[in-house]
């Protein structure tokens, strides 16, 4: 089995770089904040109390209140949960779709390969934001529309990467030997293709999650995304923008949350290539 040994990718044994570990810690902190806040400070993110308009922090709202007297901390956590949930769903679906099609195209070759590549290139030609906007006009439920639209946009990256890697690997001596020994396609995928693909897919997944969070926030910010009163990062920013003189920290909290989440994802994505 000395031939197969040459296939073991060097990258997989190296593990996570320091940059990536920093990004992961940052991301986990954001996720922990989003998930633990409703347990620690159980306040309804929609509950208004105009006596507290733009008030400072207290025990019920450690981050203070927004212009309608709603707890900023509860709203921030709810907004992060929504963004992260959409991101996880879109990344999962697009990865499954892209990797599946990519392996299929590279493995089968021929017409299937050419058709799939043509479709991917054509989807790439349409600006992603446009596709998401059109899907949002078709599907009435906004989070669902984000999920569908972003999955339709993001699968292309996985497809291109998987197809390029698998068509290179499939002719490698290790895979050839495994095939001759009579192992099935699932075994080959698990033993040979996946270890090579996984680190690259991690980068694509992190960038895809960052794209998702940016898109949801950007469309919320220009009032085409989620509708009030749903807590959403971009929507919170545009709601709090008129009060930035009176309550700069209120505006800063969604801005910082978005920045830290994206920074964490970008660090996870960028560490591998450097």
């Amino acid at each position, binding site marked *: 089995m000395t031939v197969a040994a040459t296939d073991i990718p060097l990258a997989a044994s190296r593990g996570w770089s320091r940059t990536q570990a920093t990004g992961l810690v940052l991301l986990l902190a954001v996720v922990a904040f989003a998930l633990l806040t409703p347990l620690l400070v159980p306040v309804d993110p929609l509950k208004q109390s105009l006596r507290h308009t733009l008030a400072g922090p207290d025990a019920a709202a450690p981050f203070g209140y927004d212009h309608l007297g709603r707890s900023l901390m509860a709203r921030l956590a709810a907004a992060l949960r929504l963004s992260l949930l959409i991101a996880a769903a879109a990344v999962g679906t697009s990865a499954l779709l892209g990797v599946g099609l990519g392996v299929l195209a590279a493995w089968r070759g021929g017409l299937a390969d050419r058709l799939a590549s*043509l*479709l991917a*290139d*054509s*989807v*790439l*030609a*349409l*600006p*992603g*934001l*446009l*596709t998401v*906007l*059109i*899907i*949002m*006009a*078709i*599907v*009435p439920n906004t989070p669902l529309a984000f999920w569908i639209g972003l999955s339709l946009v993001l699968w292309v990256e996985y497809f291109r990467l998987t197809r390029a890697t698998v068509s290179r690997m499939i002719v490698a001596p290790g895979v050839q030997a495994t095939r001759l020994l009579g192992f099935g396609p699932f075994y080959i995928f698990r033993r040979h293709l996946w270890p090579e693909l996984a680190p690259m897919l991690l980068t694509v997944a992190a960038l895809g999650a*960052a794209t998702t969070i*940016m898109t949801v*926030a*950007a469309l919320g*910010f*220009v009032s*085409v995304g989620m509708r009030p009163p749903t807590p959403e990062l*971009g929507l919170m*920013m545009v709601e709090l*923008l008129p009060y*930035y003189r009176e309550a700069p920290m209120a505006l800063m909290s969604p*801005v910082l949350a*978005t*920045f830290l989440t*994206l*920074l964490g*994802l*970008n*660090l996870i994505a*960028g560490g591998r290539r*450097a």
Partner: protein
Amino acid sequence: MMRLLGYRAMQALLVALLVGVLTFLMMQALPGDMAFRIAAGRYGYDMVTAGAADAVRAELGLDRPALQAFGLWFLDLLRLDLGTSVLSGAPVIDEIRHQLGASLQLAGAALILSLLMGLPIGIAAGLRAGGWLDRALLVGSTALRSVPQFLMGLILIVLVSIQLGWLPAAGHGRPEHFILPALTLALGLAAASARITRDAMAGVAASPFYAFGRWKGLSEGQMLRRHGLRNIGVALITFLGLQFAMLVEGVVVVETIFGWPGIGHALVHAIFGRDVPMVQGTALMLGLGFVALNTLIDLAAHRIDPRGARP
């Protein structure tokens, strides 16, 4: 070369078909009676009567079956007839021509600005890979990429126009209106293009032919001009094609924030008003523009590096 052009033609056709299917689904998914919605868009929600809706229906032929409507649209499309906007009644092609100019100006300004910022930094960092500038670029570009474009626009508006009062926050027509939207777009693009330039330059600078050129006594400037720039050219110009997609997405957001009367702004309005011909026309323009641009880039890359790295 011919195979490449043929592939691009197929791609253009498929893009048209995708746009057709998507916008057609959008039309089918409209809730309620489309004639009433369009009449509301034209005359205002309080002025709609059944008579006005019937007039709209008759004028636009909305009572045709769905498949027939799709077929008719696709035929019009093949004749390069994009139809008329259901809201303004003007031909879509005229509206797009009007808005595309404003968008192209903004996108062009942003692209030039980003290249002015990104290229020199990327080249300098790539020539000394691992140096302080290289590390600073890595940190800076990662941080910049973590700031979405709408947030960058917000920060610039709050800092430059509201706090300092130097530049107008929104508007169109005078040169100073260009600066903030173009800078918003350019900062994100520059972060990406500086990284790409750096990677390409570092690769070239570490190559044996670069060491040989230095060894035979060429100065750093000669090396860069004769051997560096041409070799990073292909990577850069291919990347420019991909940047177009980023630019279009940025244009949609940035134009909406800064009130720029361009194609992105119009697109958001068209989607809101369910102006399907307008959405179709705009989407088609952007998609085909991407294909055309990438065809040009393929040709340019072929000129710069005739060895034909692409299949």
